[in-house]
């Protein structure tokens, strides 16, 4: 009994921070309809700033408290800068672009934080006056945990007062419930948006600052917390404060008890909670279904034109170049070229979903990574040779897509993007947690090609042949009845259902097909590198794929291939020149989205546009 109480308190203390970050994300989304990927970066900045401030004047209780609050205020100010300089330019952009642009900010903040504070974890002292523990039923409970819980309730109460009794709060609520109405009232939406963003940012900063006595400030805080926050808002319902609160408590308690009872399957628990919620109530516990986006009837994406002269020359040229290139290039270049062939297939499989089906996925790394692990584990545990291990790769990718896809295709737009990401991150954490099976952090080593393919040139030709064949297959699928029907569900789900298409099932099949294709790429990737690490499943892999597709131009079947060539080249060159590669990639992404929206007309055309 006493143990249960103590464990529940631990859970509530974790819920406190999760609530602060999720509620900020939710408020910002409610008002601006932007899912801010960089919300986790604001949280991380809160922690780092609090670390510096407490070091300067945190040696008394009130000094420490002031340091935490000042960190929140500064992060709120940074939020104002971010809103006015970036967010404002992308409010009308398609959802995928908004996610990508804010992910660009994540990368930039990562490198800047590393520059300022260094790469090592930073441990702050405990909070003076709250550094002890009190005895509850014979168990020691940190005083600070109780302080955290109290703080969360204070914030919840404060938000409640703000939203009931101030003009700003009432407007925020009105905008969340009915944006047309606010526009009709003639309110200057600019300050409302900026205000909501500052509030959300400050809450994130507070959440991060409050963490430092419990947890070291580290560079992985941002993405870890944002994925948890996505899970919370998906479960609780976008735009709902109560939803954020209840879901944060639910998930934290589940983890607090899950860790004790089934330490091996805490991930499965989170997965199960998400799955059950989404099946029973797709808009989340407290969410409202109106948030689902509407069909775009002004869709200027031109009809498909197959095999005209120019595109034929392009594809044959590509084939000839791929076959002939090894004759003129060196040993290092052949490795890069192999990687390009593999990544081109990865990008093409993502493009198939994005463009072919209008399915926004932010977690395509899951299927690439499952392919890589499928092959890697087959070699490691079953001592299979290269050929059978490679055959397992598409099966692993397809199996993952079949399972995750079943849930994902039931959602649309931003919800789908968040859910795909959450599933991919669950797969990524699983690769860590089940270290006994997957090698965890240390990865799987010794995944080398069979003798007959061990020569880099032979392996290149093998990878090139298979990847080119699968890309050709995907291209063919786009023109087949299956592909056209998928395109039909993208253009109008309503009409598709009215001509007898089971839209959900069709999307699910497409998801699985793309998962299998990504799995093939993942399998080859494992053998090309000779190893598999959890990074293949990480969100940055998904984002690389998206950047390739955007770079190459989404509206063309050749886009993902050109994008894979371009990104691999840029990356190879830049990593040679600077170690601020993430910063450069982040800026590249932001520029792509903000400055060159017309270069990306094909995507903006078919992705649903939102109202101001």
């Amino acid at each position, binding site marked *: 009994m006493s143990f249960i109480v103590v464990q529940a308190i631990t859970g509530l203390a974790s819920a406190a921070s999760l609530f602060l970050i999720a509620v900020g994300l939710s408020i910002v989304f409610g008002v601006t309809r932007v899912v801010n990927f960089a919300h986790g970066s604001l949280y991380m900045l809160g922690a780092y700033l609090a670390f510096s401030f407490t070091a300067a004047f945190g040696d008394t209780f009130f000094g420490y408290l002031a340091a935490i609050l000042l960190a929140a205020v500064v992060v709120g100010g940074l939020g104002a800068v971010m809103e006015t300089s970036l967010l404002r330019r992308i409010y009308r952009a398609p959802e995928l672009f908004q996610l990508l642009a804010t992910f660009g900010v994540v990368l930039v903040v990562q490198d800047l934080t590393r520059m300022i504070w260094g790469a090592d974890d930073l441990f702050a002292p405990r909070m003076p006056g709250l550094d002890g523990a009190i005895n509850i039923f014979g168990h020691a409970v940190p005083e600070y945990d109780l302080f955290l819980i109290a703080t969360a309730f204070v914030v919840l109460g404060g938000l409640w007062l703000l939203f009931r009794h101030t003009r700003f709060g009432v407007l925020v609520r009105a905008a969340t419930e009915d944006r047309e109405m606010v526009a009709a009232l003639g309110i200057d939406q600019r300050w409302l948006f900026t205000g909501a963003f500052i509030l959300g940012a400050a809450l994130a900063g507070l959440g991060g600052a409050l963490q430092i006595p419990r947890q070291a400030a580290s560079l992985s805080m941002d993405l870890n917390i944002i994925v948890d926050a996505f899970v919370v808002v998906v479960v609780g319902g976008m735009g709902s404060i109560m939803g954020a609160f209840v879901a944060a408590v639910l998930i934290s308690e589940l983890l607090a008890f899950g860790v004790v009872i089934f330490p091996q399957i805490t991930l499965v628990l989170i997965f199960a909670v998400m799955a059950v919620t989404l099946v029973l109530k797709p808009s989340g516990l407290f969410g409202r279904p109106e948030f689902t986006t509407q*069909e775009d*009837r*002004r*869709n*200027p*994406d*031109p*009809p498909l034109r*197959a095999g005209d002269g120019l595109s034929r020359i392009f594809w044959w040229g590509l084939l000839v170049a791929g076959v002939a290139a090894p004759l003129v290039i060196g040993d290092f270049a052949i490795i890069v070229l192999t990687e390009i062939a593999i990544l081109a297939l990865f990008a093409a499989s993502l493009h198939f979903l994005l463009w072919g089906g209008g399915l926004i996925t932010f977690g395509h790394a899951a299927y690439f990574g499952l392919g890589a692990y499928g092959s890697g584990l087959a070699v490691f545990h079953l001592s299979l040779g290269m050929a059978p291990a490679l055959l397992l790769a598409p099966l692993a990718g397809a199996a993952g897509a079949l399972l995750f896809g079943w849930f994902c295709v039931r959602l649309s737009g931003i919800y789908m993007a968040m859910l795909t990401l959450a599933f991919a991150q669950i797969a990524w954490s699983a690769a860590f947690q089940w270290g006994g099976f997957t090698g965890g952090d240390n990865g799987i080593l010794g995944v080398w090609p069979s003798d007959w393919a061990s020569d880099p040139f032979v392996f290149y030709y093998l990878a090139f042949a298979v990847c080119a064949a699968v890309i050709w297959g995907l291209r*063919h*699928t786009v*023109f*087949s*009845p*299956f*592909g*056209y*029907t998928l*395109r*039909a569900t*993208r*253009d*109008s789900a*309503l*009409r*598709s*259902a*009215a*001509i*007898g*298409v*089971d*839209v959900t099932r*069709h999307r699910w*099949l497409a998801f699985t097909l793309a998962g299998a294709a990504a799995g093939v790429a993942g399998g080859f990737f494992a053998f090309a590198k000779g190893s598999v690490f959890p990074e293949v499943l990480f969100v940055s892999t998904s984002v690389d794929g998206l950047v390739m597709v955007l770079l190459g131009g989404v509206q063309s079947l050749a886009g993902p291939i050109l994008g894979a060539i371009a990104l691999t080249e840029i990356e190879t060159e830049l990593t040679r020149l600077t170690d601020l590669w993430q910063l450069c990639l982040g800026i590249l992404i932001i520029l792509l989205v903000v400055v060159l929206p017309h270069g990306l007309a094909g995507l903006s055309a*078919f992705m649903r546009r939102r109202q101001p």
Partner: protein
Amino acid sequence: MNVLTVEKLSKAFGGVQAVGGVSFAVAPGERVALIGPNGAGKTTLFNCINGQLRPDDGRIEMSGRDVTGQAPHRIWRHGVGRTFQITATFASMTVAENIQVALASADGAAKGLGRRLSARYRAEAEVLIELVGLAARTEDPAAELPYGDLKRLELAVAMTNEPSLLLMDEPTAGMAADARGGMMDLVDVMVAERGVAVLFTEHDMDVVFGHADRVIVLDRGQIIAEGSPDEIRGDATVRAVYLGTFDEATV
């Protein structure tokens, strides 16, 4: 046997009884107009029949089979073609492709990975395109069609599964008054040549009285009158509900 039989159908939203125990039937080849003031429950009734909404109570039969509560894509398999109040077509496809996709689905080939779609069902598509008068537009993207042509395209798409029943929610909404007759003439051609029955909602009384064999009047979720256009024209209750808008419309 009736192509459509609706028995005691009910649907409420919260406290609002949008449809309250409606029963009627549509015979093969019959043209039935469903009219009533705004909020009478016409769209709700339609959405229950075509599977978009699940009725609270009652029963829907199509050609003798119980289809109550089935999803829209299953309803289509029972031989129902639909057009929408605001047209729903595939904007990134040509006129021909719009119809070819529907024909592939009718043929059970929507999941086919074989031969490219543009080379299949071409002749059948052209027959339908010709029938709705869009031959000159065959290769144009649907996104570029004027609204009236989109309505025609939608009708052609709705005919791809050789339906026994067409459900048309306000088939002439958004069209200029002089184009409405042409659209309904086209529907009459479908009825005459292909033997399809039509259930449609409509606000334009000229269209109703000129193109319906039978009229059902709905008010506050209940059927208040049912009969031939002439009977409905003379019905006092209907006149009361419509408060004289009738006379304006028919002048």
